[in-house]
């Protein structure tokens, strides 16, 4: 009998838990450890943030589902890792602390045979002075509670605009090294459409602020894509959309401080500037959770497991940008020191950025970190689960399932406005996610036929269909496994 412990119940953690439970006999134990009581479908936060979807529609409680399906569940947060056990506990374990109920504050050594670290990122708001969701007129849509607050702020501003107030709206990244530009991109287009629906568009100046060097970079170095009968660069496509929507943009901006209605930023020229606003949504930097790890004798071995995020089978050798290779990216998400530990989704440390790193004239790094969205999170979690299942069934280590982001496609269905007949979406697929310049040297590292963009109402329908399909899948309704990651 094996015990598999999964840290985190986001997209990666939940996907791993559900597949493990479905494919492994009941004699094997699957346990999820998460401080969150709910599963949330993060991509729909955008619609919560414009008041078009109630937050209750995008989450559901985990405990009843896990109880029904035979998945163990501890509402606790991981504190430290003991991959060799300790002097009193022979088995490897994760020290965890309960966060609710009568056990709140109680610590438990949760032992495991296999560990899946799917803790995702820490939303590092502290990295930007004054960037606190709901404070200083700045909001976030990273969680459904943040998105609820964002809608409260936006809604109040719309009411003021209806009374004649002119307003400035600022949306983008809130740190020089933020990622997830896609979410901010969706939000700015949705906000812009909402302003039009409320007949206050002409009262607002809408501005995009980002650490990207070019529009449409998205932390993926941009892309060359097919658009209808044309081939265009992603920055041309986004520029076309922003021009069409009358959205201004500020690029190469590293926001370092937020005050009431004022964002301070440094640009690549090394200039320190400010941008005032009445409503802002700024994506924070992401970071690891700062976990510590100890060996059997309780010596600190954190560097064997973590490099900010978790160390996996990537090539972390420092080298110049020109020498980066798609082969540096991990394939199995297995920790090289402890072979029974895996880190799919956002929990693994990327070997390097995807976008070319840039620094300001003052030496400040102003460059997007690599994005790892829902789709690759789900795919990598499933392949980790499949490798563990094979290893348990065969009785020896099996790593036949591989999925490098350099050999994996992803779809980004970016909402550009909500409405069954008036909505819009920008559907972009990319193959591969990490550009492979050896395989596709003439098309910016990507395969053109599989890297394409479309704009229109169908994109909105697609995003809505994905919302319902993935919540159905997450709830493990009949034949849920037929829906691909």
């Amino acid at each position: 009998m094996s015990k598999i412990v999964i840290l985190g119940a986001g997209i990666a953690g939940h996907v791993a838990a559900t597949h493990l439970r479905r494919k492994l006999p009941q004699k094997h134990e699957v346990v999820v450890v998460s401080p969150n009581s709910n599963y949330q479908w993060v991509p729909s936060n955008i619609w919560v943030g414009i008041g078009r979807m109630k937050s209750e529609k995008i989450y559901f409680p985990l405990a009843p589902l896990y109880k029904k399906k035979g998945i163990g569940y501890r509402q606790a947060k991981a504190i430290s890792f003991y991959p060799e056990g300790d002097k009193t506990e022979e088995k490897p374990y994760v020290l965890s602390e309960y966060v609710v109920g009568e056990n709140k504050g109680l610590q438990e050594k949760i032992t495991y045979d296999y560990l899946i670290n799917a803790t995702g990122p820490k939303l590092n708001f502290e990295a930007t002075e004054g960037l606190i969701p709901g404070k200083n007129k700045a909001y976030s849509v990273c969680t459904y509670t943040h998105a609820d607050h964002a809608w409260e702020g936006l809604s109040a501003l719309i009411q003021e605009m209806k009374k004649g107030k002119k307003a400035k709206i600022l949306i983008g990244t809130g740190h020089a090294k933020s990622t997830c530009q896609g979410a901010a991109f969706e939000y700015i287009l949705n906000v812009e459409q909402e302003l039009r629906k409320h007949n206050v568009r002409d009262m607002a100046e809408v501005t995009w602020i980002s650490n990207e060097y070019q529009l449409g970079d998205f932390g993926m170095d941009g892309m060359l894509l097919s658009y209808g009968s044309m081939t265009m660069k992603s920055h041309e496509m986004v520029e076309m959309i922003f021009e069409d929507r009358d959205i201004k943009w500020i690029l190469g901006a590293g926001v370092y401080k937020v005050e009431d209605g004022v964002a301070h930023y440094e640009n690549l020229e090394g200039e320190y500037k400010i941008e005032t606003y009445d409503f802002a949504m700024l994506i924070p930097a992401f970071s690891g959770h700062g976990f510590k790890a100890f060996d059997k004798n309780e010596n600190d071995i954190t560097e064997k497991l973590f490099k900010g995020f978790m160390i996996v089978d990537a090539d972390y050798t420092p080298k110049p940008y020109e020498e980066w290779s798609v082969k540096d990216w991990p394939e199995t998400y297995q920790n090289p020191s402890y072979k029974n530990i895996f880190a799919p989704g956002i929990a693994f440390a990327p070997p390097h950025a995807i976008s070319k790193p840039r620094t300001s004239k003052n030496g400040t790094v102003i460059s997007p970190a690599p994005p790892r969205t829902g789709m690759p999170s789900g795919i990598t979690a499933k392949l980790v689960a499949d490798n563990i299942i094979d290893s348990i069934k065969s009785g020896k280590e099996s790593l036949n399932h591989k999925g490098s982001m350099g050999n994996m496609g992803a779809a980004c269905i970016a909402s550009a406005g909500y409405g069954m007949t008036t909505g819009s979406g920008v559907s972009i697929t990319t193959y591969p996610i990490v550009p492979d310049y050896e395989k596709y040297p003439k098309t910016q590292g990507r395969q053109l036929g599989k890297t394409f963009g479309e704009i229109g109402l169908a994109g909105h329908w697609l995003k809505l269909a994905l919302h319902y399909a993935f919540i159905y899948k997450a709830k493990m309704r009949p034949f849920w496994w037929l829906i691909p990651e």
Partner: protein
Amino acid sequence: MTQRISKYQRFKMMNPVIQFFKFIYLSIKIMLVVAGGHGGTRKVN
């Protein structure tokens, strides 16, 4: 110069009939890209 979205393009983008077929087409195309498999990038000797 930045590409502009023409009136005809906008009509096509928002026409529910055209977009219905686009929805079917995109669903299949995205499925093929995403569910079309994934693998490693390193050759094993």
